[in-house]
Every structure is written in C-alpha cells, then in structure tokens.
C-alpha cells in the first residue's frame, strides 16, 4: 500500500518531507512510469508519495530584472507558453513528450529525475541555471551542474524539496538546440545538443556548449569554453581543430536500447561542428 500525502501549504509539505521522507510528486510523468506495476495494482513506490503540484506557492513563473524564476509546480506547457522564458528552453520543452504529458510534467521534475537524457537539463546547463532547494531550515541555491552528479543522483537532502529553477536573463546572438529523438513526437532523446554564444564585433564574448545523453550527466565544460571565449572568428576557424578533441574526449556515450555509442558520438560532434561553422559563417 502506498502512503500518500496531500499537503495544503508548502510548509506542511516540508514537514511531511522531513518526517515521512515522502517523495515529492508534481506531474508524476516520470515517477508513475518508473514505478508502474501490473494493471489493477498500486504503483510500486519504495517511499511514501507527496503530491505537490497543487501548491500555489510553487506554481508560478516570475520574471525578475535579472532572472526568471520557474516555480517547481509550473508545468512544462506553462513554461512553453511563457514568452519571457528563453526561446531555447521553450523550444526544448516543445519537443518533449506529447501535449498531455507537458500539461502535467514540470521542469523541476525533469531536473530531479536527473536523467542524462532529460531534455530541459542540457539547455539549463547551458543557460547557467540554478536550483532552489528548500527545507524547514530555509532555502539554498546551487547551480544545476552541481546539483546533478550522475544518472538519478542529485544533491537533494531528504528533508528538501526543489522549489524553483532560476535562469539568468541574458541575450545570445547564436543559439541552437537540437534534439535527436527516437521519432518526431512523444520521443525520448538519443542525444541532444545546445549551443549558446554571444558574438560581438567578430569576437566571442561568451559561448556555452552542452550535450545530453552522451555521458552519465549532461556534458558541458566551462574549461574548454574558456579556451574559446575571447577568440576572434578568424582565430576560431584556426584553433577549432585544436579545441575539438576536448569534446571528442568528453562525449562518452553508451550503447543502449535506443541508440548506439558510435552514432551518438558522431552525431554530437557533427552538431558541434555545424554550430561552430554557423558562428563563422554569419559573422
């Protein structure tokens, strides 16, 4: 028998989280699938379950001067339809699952599922997103890159609930998001690529490159990006072949039931090449 909770306030939810170690369930689009059981029986949850999607305190998208705060209860559809949310994230969300699932699923849930194939995660890595984790003792914020440490592994205390995702408001001159899914709709990713760059006067002011589903976590290297930042487009053309091997080494996908390591690696690098080429062409 699965024990379930339906808190009325966030504070009540935090108490239940602490006392019962109940897992927060917002849309349930991952959890209900992962713990499904034979038809006619209850899902096979190893913990009590706490519904949180109805809590108005976390169901918001708030546009602040420097960042956008997406409450943990905001659905993927709400994010997709909010014009202030960065286009690249909205694009990624619009390619997730199917409309009915997007009406239930949340960005926070996608992050907490911590799958390397999570479609918002590669984009949020590139956007330098932070997450807010709240317990009865207060809230803390960490970057999404620190939050996720492996497939399904995350820095979430057993008394904490993710309450918001923060995205800095920035502008980019070149953005590319590409999901290579198993089909055109209602598909899981074989791999994904996100490239964001700010090019000013023929020089790279900022660049972020992230790869989904090609390692235990989303792959992004701030170190390698630093090698690219500050380069002129001319220099980029010259030096790209020296920097590319960093990604050849970092992108380490596996064979599974959805695709092959060889394909994932080659396509990831093809998309990287394509993106870098787009920077040189349009400048």
């Amino acid at each position, binding site marked *: 028998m699965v024990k379930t909770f339906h808190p009325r306030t966030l504070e009540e939810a935090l108490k239940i989280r602490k006392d019962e170690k109940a897992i927060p369930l917002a849309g349930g689009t991952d959890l209900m699938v992962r713990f499904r059981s034979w*038809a006619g029986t209850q899902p096979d949850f190893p913990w009590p379950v706490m519904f949180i999607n109805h809590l108005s305190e976390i169901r918001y998208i708030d546009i602040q001067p420097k960042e956008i705060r997406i409450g943990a209860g905001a659905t993927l559809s709400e994010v997709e339809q909010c014009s202030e949310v960065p286009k690249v994230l909205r694009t990624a969300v619009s390619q997730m699952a199917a409309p009915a699932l997007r009406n239930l699923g949340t960005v926070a849930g996608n992050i907490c599922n911590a799958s390397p194939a999570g479609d918002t995660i590669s984009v949020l890595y590139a956007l330098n997103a932070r997450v807010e984790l709240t317990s009865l003792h207060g809230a803390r914020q960490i970057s999404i890159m620190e939050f996720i440490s492996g497939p399904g592994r995350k820095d979430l205390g057993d008394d904490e609930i993710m309450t918001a995702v923060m995205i800095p408001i920035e502008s980019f001159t070149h953005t590319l998001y590409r999901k290579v899914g198993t089909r055109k*709709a*209602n598909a899981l990713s074989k791999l994904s690529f996100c490239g964001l760059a700010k090019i000013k006067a023929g020089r790279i002011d900022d660049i972020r490159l992230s790869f989904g589903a090609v390692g235990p976590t989303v792959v992004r290297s701030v170190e390698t990006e630093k090698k690219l930042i500050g380069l002129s487009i001319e220099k980029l053309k010259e030096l790209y072949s020296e920097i590319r091997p960093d990604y050849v080494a970092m992108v380490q996908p596996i064979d599974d*039931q959805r695709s092959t390591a*060889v394909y994932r690696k080659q*396509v990831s690098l093809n998309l990287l090449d394509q993106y870098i080429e787009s920077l040189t062409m349009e400048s």
Partner: protein
Amino acid sequence: MKKRISDSIRRVDAFDKAGGITKYISDMDFEDLQYGRLVRALRSHARIKSIKSPKLPDGYYFITKDDIPTGGKNEIQQISNDWPVFVKDEVLFYGETVGMLVGPDRQKILDLEDAISIEYEELEEAFSIDEGLALKSGKIYGEDNCYGDYHLNKGDVKKGFAEAVTVFEEEINTGYQEHVYMEPQGLVGYYENGKYVIIASSQCPFYIKKAISPVLNTDQDNIVIKQATTGGAFGGKEHFPDIIAAPLAVAVDVIRKPIQVVFDRKEDLSFTAKRHPSRGIFRTGLDAKGNIVAMDVDVTINAGAYMSCSNIVLQRAIFSINSVYDIANVHVHGRSVATNAFPSDAFRGFGAPQGLFLAEMHMSHIARNLGISPVEYKRRYFMKKGDTTITNGIMHDEVKLEEMLEKVYAAGSIEEKLAEYTPGSGRGIGISFYQHGAGFTGNGEQEIIKAKLKMLKHGDGNVEILLSNVEMGQGLQTTFPKIAAQVLEIPIEMISCDNPDTSKVPNSGPTVASRSLMVVGKLVERASRELKERWDEDEEVEVLVNYIHPEGCEWDQATLQGDAYPTYGWGVCAIEVEVDPATAEVETKGIWTAHDVGVAIDEMIVHGQVNGGVIQALGYGSLEKLDYKDGKFQQNTLADYIIPTSMDFPMMSSQLIENPYENGPFGAKGLGELVFDGGASAFADAVEYAIGKKVYKIPVTPEYIMEVKNRD
C-alpha cells in the same frame, strides 16, 4: 438510384468505438472475478530441476501441468502440437509458461509470484538462424532444426547460370516486428452449464476451441468461444490467444470461477510472438546486357522454439521472393529454423513482406550496379497475365502495374523529381512494386477450411449474418452487412453481424490471410442472393452456403506446385525522403500509392487500410528496431519500441485501380495485408538513392544509415 458498392458509409462500429461506449475484455464485469497471471521460466534453454512455491492463502491457486485433467494432454493443438501448455521438462525459450497464479487480489498474486523460485540446470542456447542451423543448443526440432525445408524450381537454373556472364551475390536481412495492437492480449474463462466458455480478444475463435480441446480432454462441443470486441490484432491474435487460453482453461477446470488474463503492455511486448526475422542470400546470373538469366535464393526465417505457423509463413515468403517479376530460371531454398528465441508467428503479410523486401532490394541493387534506374529495370520483368508464377502456376490476373505506376508518377511528379535529385544528394525517391496472394495458400480453403455461412431472415424483416470472422478494426461488421444490403436492397440498419459465438455461428474460417472479405464476403453475397429469392417463402428464412473452389485453380500442397493463390492484389508505392547530413535522420516528404484491390467494398475503409498498412510498413522499415539479446526483447516498452506517430509521416496520396475479381463479392479482392507489403522497401530504396549507398537490412535507422555512410 442504387448506390455504388464502393461509396463510403459510416462504419457500423464508429460511434461506439470513438465514443468509448464499446466494451473490451478489460471492461467486462463478472461476479467473483479472479485474476490469472502466467508464471514464466526466465531462461532460454534449461532443464527445470525444481519449482518451489509458497504456501498459498485460501482462494489462491498455482496451476501447473499437474492440474491438467485426467486424459488431457500438455500440448496445444495448433497446426502442430509441439508447443506445450506448461513447460514439460526443458525450457526452450525465455518466458515460457510454467504455471498460472490465480486469485482475487492482484497485489497478492504479485507477492506470491515473487515467492516462487525455480531451480534450473542451464543448457546451451541458440538464438540466431546460423546458431539454430548449427545445432548450437542441440536438436530443438527434428534432426536439423528445420521445421520446414522447401525447394522451388522454375525454368532451368543450371542452364541459366551457364549463360551468365556475371554472377551477383548478396545477403539481405529483415528484423523482428511487434504488432502493437491497441488492446493487448486478453481472455476471460469460466464454466457454465457444463461448458467451458472463453471470451477472447482474438482473430480465430474456432482455433482456440480446437487448441484447448485435447488439453481439457473434452469434446469441442463442450467448449464455447465468444468473441470479444477486439482492439486490433494484425496477426498477433491469430494463434497466440491459444497459448493463453490453454493454461486458462486448465485453471477454469480446477477453480470453476470466472478468471481474467489480460497482459499489460510490458508483458505483451516482452512475451508475445513477433514477425519472423528473415535472411535472403541471392546469387543472380546476368548476361552481357545485364538481363537476369538465373536466380538462386536461400531464404531462412527465425521461427523460434516452437513451430506454430512458421512453415506457412515460410511458404508465403518464398512464393514472394520474385515479387511482381517473371524471372525465367529460379531456384529457391527455404527453411524455417528452430532456435531458442521466442516463437515467431503470424503478422500482417505473413512472410510476404519479408520475401518482397528481400526481392525488391535485390532487384534495385542489380539495377544500381548496372547503372540503370531501378524502376526501368524492374519494369522489364513485370508479370503479365498468362505468365508462369514461381510455383509454376499461371497468372490469371490482368496485371495493371504500368497503369498504377503512371498514376503514382503523376500524383507525385516523380519524373521531375528524379531528374532533379542526384543519387547521394541527400534527397531521394524510392519506388516499390508488390503483390499479395489473396486468401489461403493453394487449396487450403477447399481442403482445410471448408467455410460455411448462415443467414437468417426474421419475422420482422431483419436479417442476421452468422459467421466466425471477427471485426478487429478492419471493418468487417460494416462491409459484410453492406454486401448483403446491396444485394437484398434493404437498409443496412436491418442487417446485423455480431461478434461470433462458436455455439451459435457456423465456422466460416479464421480472420486471416486477407481472406475474410474476399472469400467469406463472397459467401455473404451468394447467401444474400439466395435469401432474396426465397424472401417470401416464410416468416423466417434460413440460408446456409458452403465455399465453392474457383475453377482452374490447381494446387499440389505436397510439391508446392500450381496456383498458389486464386488471385493477387497489386501495389505501387513511392516514397520521397530527405536525409539530414549531420544526424542521418530521415524526413519523409511524400508518399504516393496505387493499389489494385479488385473493387473497393467501401472506399473509406480501403483508404483506412492503405493509410494504416503503409504507415505500419514504414515503421517496420525505418523505426521499429527490436533487438533480441540473451533471450530477451530489448525494446519492451512503448518508449523504446518505436512505432510511428502521426507526426512522423506526411499525408499520403492513395489511388485505387478497378480490376474486378469474379470470385470476390462485387469483384473485391483481399487487401488488408497487401497494403503492408511495399512501404519498407520503398523507404529503403529512397534512402539508398538519397545517400548513394546500398542498404541491406531493415529497419533503416539513422544509426544504420550512419554506418552505411561511413562504409568504405
């Protein structure tokens, strides 16, 4: 004015199905319903040393082979009877039934299942065709692991090869395919008034009756199969319901309460039969001008651990191995190979899609080697009326492929596109030609099925059609009454054709082989004509008709020689694709088809079949990768087993050619499988054109395209 038979009407079942009113197996209520769950052997090849089950609470049962009634056999009577109800001693495939847990609470059943432990002695396993042929796991069947081993000879292949200047050899493969009927497998069994009753989501109620009668050691008259409204089948409910019905019947015999066995999706994907994987090895001799002078083909299919219908599937595969072409000198060697894989079974097309894919790709490859357009090359060999078929029968049909090709070209502006796109440019067009022998092979209708059909006129003027063919989405409960209404000149609302109940309907045969509308529909037409003549004879009039074999259709099943099929449906399919240079993902830009189905009994239903069949074939050809590893299907959820969505392929153009067949009702021929037969090869052919390299297997996934592009 009398309407044309082909003019579309609203389907009889449309409103209730679209409105969620129709009740399927899982929706039915029964008093004191018990749930059954198959307990499976989770080894591919092993001897069972012991089975330990926990102490069962009251009202719970673990049904095993020891529960088979006295005198009953632990074997399911299908075409063969090798498939046991419960594992005998040796487990031959992963997931084979060991027993069935039954009880009122499903959670408790799951807990009990966890507490059952089976001890095995592991044995060597053989999964691939080659491992089966090499007897890697010993003799699974006979001396050589070949359920079927056939040779076909047409012309003089030796003489042909003597004239050959070059010999072109290649191997082509097709993969597994899962049916993904919307409603998974499900049955309910109970005991009532001295009879065993099974309500089944199935294609062949009379097959189930026959299958379980020796198990229960009871006369077939003591078994009643009631057809439940069936949410799709595609061949997956032709024989497989027998496999569930047999242990269910044993459980009903012991428990005497209603018991439901319904697979959930994962169980259905993991543990039901799939389409046979196939391999074709071609050796084709060409003369100096590139003409085919001889063709030698070795066809093997992976049949799995039990025979089921594999030999008939193999027969259709080898009869299709020349596609729509008249090749003068041919030898075909076909084998259905026993392995420790899950037994393969019927699937829309029944071997023809495999044979046709192998044939179409091979013909395209010969043409490409010669630098000739595949279409031009294939046209040289189009079968014509009076030509000799691969089984040395006569093609009785007027073959209208040229006319169909012209229609497809015009609809898709194919000529212009072919001129514009160069091979290897990333854009391509593929065209396939195909035929499907309608109905049972050879004289099966006459010798085995012997279909009977009854029509009743009641006192109120309403008419009832009694037959055993089932509505499974293909529209029979609309088309059968439509035929009768047209003949009787009464409104279709006055005619009923309900889900069959074997205690009430005559056996008009199984719902398979694209036979129902053509063969049984003809019986409906004949019975209606008789009924019309006798309409005023009495208040109630009963008409019974029997199958009549078409004249001039000779067949010898022992040698597989003669007219393999009474008639054929024909098809042409063109696919336009664009291949993404970075990801090798394929965007299908257009689909144009033309089909000869004789005469459409209802154009909307035919278009539904064309749309569904072609898209299902495109899934087979491009997306539906199903790997078998260590005895297990790897893609066992619908997140991983990828069937197309409506977003994956564009609207298709479909045209029909009228070519009436005299032994079909109003000239109709079978079409349900035909429309599946050409999509995969057209897609693969288009990809070949787009990437400028040959593909040798389906599904043509982006992963495989990348591999092909990296070749050389």
